[in-house]
């Protein structure tokens, strides 16, 4: 089953000192080539890895994206419009393009979502259906805090 990735698990997977690294590493590895990463997520992860981790890690991450280890989702005009509409529909949450693009791609591909941003994804459910199908939920997430 396809899994659309948000930035937080990818950053946690890249940084071995992140409190949720072990959980993220297992989830990303388990998803493997079923992982879909929207382009806005790639930009955010690359940017944050360069800013707070290191250049080599950012380049390795980009290389993984460029060499087809995961599936990139480029925002077509219709997906971009869907993301914009999601952001507008939940204007009070200030989602932004990254979260909204994950939601738009998940909706379009009927995929599971891999995120650690439970606040936004719980507060902004899909237009159809009651909630996003999450690869990991809050209780499982908390169990992995700081695990080495």
């Amino acid at each position, binding site marked *: 089953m396809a899994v659309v990735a948000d930035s937080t698990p990818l950053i946690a997977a890249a940084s071995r000192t992140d*409190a949720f690294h072990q959980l993220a590493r297992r989830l990303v590895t388990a998803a493997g080539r079923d992982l879909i990463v929207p382009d806005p997520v790639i930009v955010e992860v690359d940017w944050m890895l360069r800013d707070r981790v290191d250049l080599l890690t950012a380049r390795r991450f980009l290389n993984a994206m460029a060499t087809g280890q995961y599936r990139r989702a480029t925002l077509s005009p219709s997906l971009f419009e869907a993301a914009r509409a999601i952001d507008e529909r939940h204007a009070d949450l200030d989602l932004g393009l990254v979260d909204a693009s994950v939601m738009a791609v998940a909706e379009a591909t009927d995929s599971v979502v891999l995120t650690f941003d439970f606040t936004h994804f719980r507060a902004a459910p899909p237009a159809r259906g009651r909630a996003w199908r999450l690869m990991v939920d809050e209780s499982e997430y908390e169990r992995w805090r700081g695990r080495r």
Partner: protein
Amino acid sequence: MVRRTISLPASVDAKVLKIAEEEGSYSAAVARLVEEGTKRSGKVDQPDWIGSGEGPADLSENLDKYIRAALRRGGRR
């Protein structure tokens, strides 16, 4: 294919033999079980970007905070 000589506890050998009876080959059963086990543990075939660097322990948890801080100081974005 490579050839290895390994020692297994008798209890493990019995389990593999049972699976091998169903699947037709002891080596194939061991290979499949190891593949499945390593995939579940996530300890091999790890892409090089995973665990490649070291950042703040709360980076993924407080991503929005780090983004705002970077924007305030005129970071890359």
